[in-house]
């Protein structure tokens, strides 16, 4: 039976987790002799105080929406895809190849081609672990971790080898002008809204929002989504209902990998405008925190991604103006994962007790038979 109202599960628990993570982070800042209040102020003004700051915040958020959705859709099929990082790297490779070797007349067409390439490369990188999980029972967590490392080696090789531009740096040459995506400044400029042109947030942000809606509809409004959720809740039941585990694992993971890959339209096509080493910068892993925080719901993922975008941009400001390393954000990210993911019960159990105590009422006759049944 439901012990807690749904809103508590969806809103209260993530908020408490976040609060705990924030308090611990504040303690870390205190411990290294800085002021948490100052730090927070700096983060807010740096990340949200100007359209420039927002431009960065939303740029990071776009990355995290893609990787967060990547983890979330896999979660629905009870797959833990830690491979978002590698899939995002491969997505970058796909984008680079498509944009470097095919001349595109206009950024709109280039964007569509890049989405297809990024999605396909990301999905392909997820396909092998997915296949091994579905057909050979190889634990997908381990294989996707391994594939992250293999992806890193592959990109390393590509960027010092075949794709390398002349010069010292292990990177491709810049993509042609025609493929450059308009920044949010360009977009809002059309509507006469003043917005920074220097910040990297670009039209991919809107694609990310579209992806949120599409995924929401997929999960809760389509037959495929129904089957994915059913499989995620119970594999034996899914088999009984004629839902093929292999099919669901493959489809869910392909969508997952494609979403991670699509991050490349933001960071590779939108921001760097070429492919550099370690282009994903850990965004694939932040997707885990974002998905956990967002309770695997696309809208939750959106909110959590913006929050992490804020943390990332704010963290960069901290590193710039205070003696706090950027890695503080990694700490916060770790704490969010810890509290919303691994220590979920630590927050949930006392809260459930509280709700049970608050809502205790004489049980209805029907409930009583439920009770007796549940006892054995």
């Amino acid at each position, binding site marked *: 039976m439901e012990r807690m109202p749904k809103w508590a599960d969806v809103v209260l628990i993530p908020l408490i987790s976040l609060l705990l993570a924030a308090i611990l982070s504040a303690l870390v800042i205190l411990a290294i*002799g800085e002021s948490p209040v100052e730090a927070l102020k700096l983060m807010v003004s740096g990340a949200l105080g100007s359209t420039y700051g927002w431009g960065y915040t939303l740029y990071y958020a776009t990355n995290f929406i893609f990787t967060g959705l990547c983890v979330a859709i896999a979660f629905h099929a009870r797959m833990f895809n830690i491979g978002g990082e590698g899939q995002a790297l491969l997505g970058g490779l796909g984008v680079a190849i498509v944009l470097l070797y095919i001349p595109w007349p206009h950024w709109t067409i280039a964007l569509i081609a890049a989405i297809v390439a990024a999605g396909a490369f990301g999905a392909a990188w997820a396909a092998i672990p997915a296949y091994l999980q579905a057909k050979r029972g*190889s634990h997908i967590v381990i294989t996707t*971790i391994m594939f992250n490392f293999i992806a890193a080696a592959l990109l390393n090789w590509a960027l010092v080898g075949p794709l390398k531009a002349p010069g010292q740096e292990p990177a491709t040459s810049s993509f042609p002008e025609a493929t450059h995506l308009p920044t949010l400044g360009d977009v809002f400029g059309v509507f006469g809204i003043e917005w920074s042109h220097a910040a990297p947030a670009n039209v991919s942000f809107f694609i990310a929002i579209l992806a949120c809606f599409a995924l929401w509809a997929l999960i809760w409004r389509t037959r495929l989504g129904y089957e994915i959720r059913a499989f995620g809740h119970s594999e034996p039941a899914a088999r009984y209902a004629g839902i093929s585990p292999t099919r669901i694992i493959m489809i869910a993971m392909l969508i997952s990998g494609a979403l991670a890959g699509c991050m490349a339209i933001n960071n590779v096509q939108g921001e760097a405008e070429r492919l550099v080493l370690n282009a994903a910068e850990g965004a694939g892993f932040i997707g885990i925190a974002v998905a956990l925080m967002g309770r695997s719901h696309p809208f939750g993922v959106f909110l959590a991604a913006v929050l992490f975008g804020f943390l990332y941009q704010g963290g960069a400001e901290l590193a710039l103006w205070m003696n706090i390393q950027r890695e503080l954000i990694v700490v916060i*990210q770790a704490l969010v994962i*810890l509290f919303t993911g691994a220590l979920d019960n630590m927050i949930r159990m006392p809260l459930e007790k509280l709700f049970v105590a608050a809502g205790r009422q004489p049980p209805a006759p029907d409930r009583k038979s439920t009770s007796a049944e549940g006892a054995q």
Partner: protein
Amino acid sequence: MDFITIVQILDSTIRLAVPLLLACLAGLFSERAGIFDIGLEGKMLAAAFMSGAVAYTTGQVWIGLLAGIGASLLLSGIHGLASITFRGNQLISGVAINFLAAGLSVVIAQDWFGQGGRTPNISGDARFNGITLPGADAIESTPFIGPIYEELLSGHTIIVYIAFLTVPLTWWILFKTRFGLRLRAVGENPAAVDTAGVSVVGLRYAAVGICGILTGLAGAYLATALQAGFVKDMTAGRGFIALAALIFAKWRPWYALSACLLFGFLQAVALRFQNIDLGLVELPVQFMDALPYILTVIILAGFVGKAIPPRAGGQPYVKER
């Protein structure tokens, strides 16, 4: 390739295999008890940082080692809390621990030493130095045996010898002692252990604790023996290679030794040569870097013998209702 080069590569294999071996055996204890641990990397990193930092500050490597083990144990404690006490997702907890260590080590190192997230170089008593085995100098010039003894077997730090002794010790504990029997049982069917009147929680915490000590050793070895001080992200995926080795070894101690030596050898070769010319094809160094992971995927795929993990692995123990 001459004989001396081979000996040198093997020597380097041993040095590089040691952190893998310690971490792998650490994972073995934890996973045999049913607690998956993908946080080996993070625990190693935390230990590397603390041991390096404390060894530098005190000038005493042994105090550094203890501090490193302490840091690793602390993270083990968090993992235990999440996965044993609060029955959380062990994989997610491991991920969190990896990030926690990656972030905290740099933030604290910057605050402590102000060198951009690394410790200053350490030397002398603040570092583990090689031990010359008896007679190594005398035998050095003997052909064949000399270099093998002097170069390959002698001259390593104490942790290297400890690591290799840990293998038979682990085997003995696992298969010849009461603790080992219970440990293996709790990873296979915790309810059997519980109803036999033995504490599941206690056993699992013990296993996680041993895992913490061994990863602590592994991390300390990195910062105070293999290298002279801590640098940001110095574990460089070794925790995951150790995990790969553990799967490769099918959770068995002697196999773990072979797997770690193999992966250490791959690293040694990749370090020594850049691209390897095999005549027909030239293997790029990146391929050598990726090889342990590729091999593990192949093993996981079950094409070369199936790796079956402990049956209760990854699942929190809840008394059934």
